[in-house]
C-alpha cells in the first residue's frame, strides 16, 4: 500500500438542524488502495460521501484531493479533477441508450455542443467499457430496460468514462444477486490493479474484509477505528458498537 494520501478529510462536520450527522471526522484514502468506509445504518457514511463530492456543504472541516485543498467542494470541478462517485440507488439516464449514458460523462469542450452526439472515439471507448462490464450486447438498448444489477454496472462503467483517479462507490453490491456481486468485485480488483483508487461504502462485510484495506469504521458520525481488516475486525470498540457483540 502506498502511504501517500489521495484524499484527506479533516474535521468534517455536518448538522441537519439539531441532528449531528457527521462530527469532526478525519481520515485519509491512500493512493492505490481500496479503502472501505463502514458503519451501522445512520452512522453518516453517505453523508460523508455527499460532503466529499460537494453534494452537501460541510459546516466545518476541510477536504484535500490529490494534494490540493478543496475550499468549496463542487461536483463538476471535483469530477474534472478526477474524483467521482456512484449512488446507493443507481442513477442512470433511463431513456438514453447505454452508449449515450456513458458518453454523457465525457467532458466536452463548449464549442462542440452542436457536434454529433457521439463521436467515433467516444463510441469506441464506450464500447470498450461495456465489453469489460459484460454489457456490450445491450449497447444500443434503453438503460431503463436493464435489471437492477445491470444498472449498477452501467453506473459504475459511466463514472469510469472520464478516467478518474478516485471512485467513491456507495454500496455497490446492495440489492444485487451473488453472480453480479462477484462481477462487481472482479471489476473493482482489476481496476485497482491498474492503479485506480477506491473508497467504498459497503454493508457486505465479507466482501469488505476480502476486498478492502484499510477499513475505516464510523459510528454516530465520528471515526471509531481505522486499520487493516483483521485489526478492525478484532477491535473491541467496533465489535461493541458496530457488530453489537
Amino acid at each position, binding site marked *: 500500500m502506498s502511504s501517500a494520501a489521495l484524499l484527506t478529510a479533516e474535521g468534517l462536520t455536518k448538522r441537519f438542524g439539531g441532528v449531528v450527522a457527521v462530527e469532526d471526522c478525519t481520515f485519509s484514502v491512500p493512493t492505490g488502495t481500496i479503502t472501505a468506509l463502514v458503519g451501522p445504518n445512520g452512522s453518516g457514511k453517505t453523508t460523508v460521501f455527499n460532503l466529499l463530492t460537494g453534494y452537501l456543504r460541510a459546516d466545518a472541516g476541510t477536504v484535500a484531493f490529490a494534494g490540493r485543498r478543496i475550499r468549496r467542494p463542487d461536483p463538476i470541478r471535483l469530477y474534472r479533477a478526477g474524483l467521482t462517485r456512484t449512488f446507493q440507488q443507481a442513477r442512470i439516464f433511463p*431513456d438514453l441508450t447505454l452508449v*449515450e449514458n456513458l458518453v454523457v460523462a465525457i467532458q466536452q469542450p463548449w464549442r462542440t455542443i452542436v457536434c*454529433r452526439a457521439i463521436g467515433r472515439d467516444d463510441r469506441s471507448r464506450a464500447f470498450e467499457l461495456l465489453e469489460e462490464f459484460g454489457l456490450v450486447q445491450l449497447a444500443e438498448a434503453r438503460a431503463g430496460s436493464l435489471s437492477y444489477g445491470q444498472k449498477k454496472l452501467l453506473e459504475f462503467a459511466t463514472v469510469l468514462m472520464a478516467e478518474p483517479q478516485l471512485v467513491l462507490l456507495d454500496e455497490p453490491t446492495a440489492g444485487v444477486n451473488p453472480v453480479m456481486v462477484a462481477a462487481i468485485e472482479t471489476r473493482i480488483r482489476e481496476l485497482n490493479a491498474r492503479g485506480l483508487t477506491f473508497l467504498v461504502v459497503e454493508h457486505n462485510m465479507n466482501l469488505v474484509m476480502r476486498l478492502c484495506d484499510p477499513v475505516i469504521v464510523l459510528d454516530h458520525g465520528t471515526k471509531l477505528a481505522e486499520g487493516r481488516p483483521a485489526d478492525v475486525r478484532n477491535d473491541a470498540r467496533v465489535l461493541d458498537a458496530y457488530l453489537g457483540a
Partner: protein
Amino acid sequence: MHLVVQACILGVLTGGVYALMASGLTLVFGVMRVINVAQGALVILSAYLSWALFTHFQVDPFLSVLIVAPLIFALGVGVQLVFIRSLRSEQAEELSLLITWALALGIEGVLGAVYETTYRATNTSYANSAWTIFGYQVSVVRAYAFGLCVAVLVLLYLLLARTRFGRSVRATVQNPSSALLLGVNADRVRALAFGIGVSTAAAAGAVYGVLYPFNPGSHYDLISRLLSIVVLGGLGSVAGAVAAALMMGVVEAVVAVEISPVWSSFSYFVVLVAILLLRPQGFFGARERTL
C-alpha cells in the same frame, strides 16, 4: 366529405403553428420544471417585432425570424440567468410561475404603452393567395407558416436527438443530480434550453402575426391554449405537444365546418377533458416524459 377534408388540411396547418409554440413551452418544463406562462406574451412580442420590421423596413415576416429569434433567445437566456436560476429547486415550479407571469404582464404593459390596444396584422402581398391542390384550397400563408414550423421543429429535434447539447439536455431532464455529478453544467444547459424554448415563440410569433390580428392582450387566449396542448401531450414531451397541437387544429376546424364555428374552440377542450379522464398523464406523459 370535401368540406371535412378541407377542414382537416386547415386544421393540420394551424396545428403546426401551435405545435411550434407549445414545443418550446414543454421543452422548458421538461428541462427545468418551469411553467413559462410568458410563452404567449413572447409570441405576441415577436409578432410585434416582426410586424415592425415588415412595416418599417419591408422585411418579409418569414425572413424576420432570423432577426427576431436571436433577440428573443437572448432575452430568454437573460431572464433565466437573472430571475430563474437563483430559485431554490424545491420552490422553482411555483415561484417561476410568478416570475414568468410577471414577465408576461411586463411585456403586455410595454407593448400597450408603445402600440396601445389597436389590433395589428402583418399583411403581406401573398396574404390572400391560395393554391388549389386536388380541388382543395391551401392558403399560401398557412402553407408557408406550416413549412417554417416543421423546419424549426425538425431543427429542434436534430438539436435534441443528435447533438452533444441535446444529449446533455436529455440527461439533465432525466436525472439532474446525476448529470451534474458527471460534469454536465446544468446551469448552462438550463439557460440555453430556456433560450431555445422561447425562441420557438419567436418563430411562431412571426407566423402568428401573418395569420391572425393581434394586440398586447392576445397572449391570454394563446397561453390557455398552449398550456392545454402541453398537458394533453404529456408534460415535458415535445412529441406529445406536436401531436396534441395537430389534434387541436383538426378538431376545431372539423367542428367549425360540421357543427358550428361557435363550438369550435370549446370542442377541443371537451376532447381534452375526455382524453385526460382516460389518460391523465396525457399522450406521452409518465413513461415518455422526456423529449
